[in-house]
């Protein structure tokens, strides 16, 4: 499962973008989005998902149940 950003809550502060170790976050149409295929949930990099930890609005960066869980590629 990757993380996703709840569009209606995002303030477009851009705090998450530089924190992502996988460059999975970018701006689109005035808010920020996560590319699910790039998101590793920060596993292998940090204990906490960085976008969640830095985002000023609670429950804005959340698990996207629709995306298959990230698998470390062999």
């Amino acid at each position, binding site marked *: 499962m990757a993380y996703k950003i709840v569009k209606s809550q995002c303030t477009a*502060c851009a705090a998450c973008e530089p924190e992502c170790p996988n460059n999975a976050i970018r701006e689109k149409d005035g808010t920020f989005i996560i590319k699910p295929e790039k998101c590793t949930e920060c596993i292998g990099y940090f204990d906490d998902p960085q976008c969640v930890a830095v985002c000023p609005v609670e429950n804005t960066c959340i698990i996207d149940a629709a995306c298959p869980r990230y698998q470390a590629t062999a």
Partner: protein
Amino acid sequence: MRQAIDVSIGGVQEMKPLDKVMQKMAEHKGCGMSAGSGKASCGSAAGQGDLAPEVWEKVKNHPCYSEEAHHHYARMHVAVAPSCNMQCNYCNRKYDCANESRPGVVSEKLTPQQAVRKVLAVASAIPQMTVLGIAGPGDPLANPEKTFKTFELISKVAPDIKLCLSTNGLALPDHVDTIKNLNVDHVTITINMIDPEVGAEIYPWIFYKHRRIKGREAAKILAERQLQGLDMLTERGILCKVNSVMIPGINDRHLVDVNKAVKSRGAFLHNIMPLISSPEHGTVFGLTGQRGPSAQELKGLQDSCEGQMNMMRHCRQCRADAVGLLGEDRSAEFTTEKIMEMDVNYDADTRKAYQQMVEQERRSKVAARQGGLSQVTGETSDIRVLVAVATQGLGRINEHFGHAREFQVYELSTGGAKFVGHRRVDLYCRGGYGEKDSLPTVIRAINDCHAVFVAKIGGCPRGELIQAGIEPVDRYAHEFIEQSAIAWFKGYLDRVKRAEIRHTARGDADIRQGAYVVA
């Protein structure tokens, strides 16, 4: 950067006499353009206080800090820094950083290139614009690339403009050398506590070293980083001001300790601002009903810190993209859309000539003012009163009561006239029509004052002021504030002595809540 700036060196800009510019600003602003009057503790000629000589040298004529200069010089902020690395309970991150801006205000975000274009456009239109600040809308040092890129570009194209930045201090120690290398003139750090117990009630979390840290631990790290950053800056000779937000019941008494801590580390100014919180801002404090201080509580705290160091009382918590003299905001003239169309003509020589003229005007004012200060000598009295002044700046009583968007407040005693703050009010009179409803709010805002000095006042508000016990005074229209106030005060003491009037203390006053957005 090249294509974005696109400066046209064209026709020589006509130099406008100061009055005309002032008038233009006044028209634009609907008259709310009065500027503050400097550091309160420097109300006397011996303003140096306990500052080191080399610091005093820098501060003395500084457009932001000298007690006269910021009537005459303008500054601007550009909003290039949207991110923040922590959370404050008085901040709702939908809006600008509440440390440096009025809560509930949104600034137009700019790229560094757009910011440079804006600075040049403003500097050409307002030749006394000499200071550029980055204060948000988030924390400038949580956006180091954007912040430093902007400074770097500006220092190339407009080296005469002083640079400043404001920060929550969490990332400060990491960037001190860059700040020094870019020749940043002064840094403001918002420090609300040095005790983690207190901090835990103000800051729910920080983002530090890739972790979200909460509670006491977060506050401890923050306080350490802030004080370390302050130490590092003053060691390198960079001017440092400290802002604190006064939160009654949480850090009000503690701020006296903060004052000592920052003073001992070389901060040259400590600016205590009132908490502004209302439920509609959606901040934690807004929702928990945490109140801000009253005018008297704020002044009491400022007074108790005053012996310690220079206090700044002219801070208006202006917005992150503000443009203009302190206390006024012309940002609506300089939106991205408008500056892209503007014919920018950045002419360093015109600016210099203009600034020299401003400097002359300023000196004549300083001289005139010093002439008036000795007037109460020979009198001894314990009486102290506050008076409100309607002014458009230049140190004169030159605003109509009904046009005033704010009043400057002076404390009068036999020791002289001392600027102690300003009160923002809603415009009482719009376009010449007195609006009945707003008069009571104006009166509440200056309710602790014995008199209000104005250039002019209508019959109806005059009557209501008198009824509220505030004497409207218009006989010093267009004269210098301090001299007039002292002359009036002398008369007041005489009247008390002759038992014509009885001196009574006045009540407390309101600090206006809510965002300051220029209509």
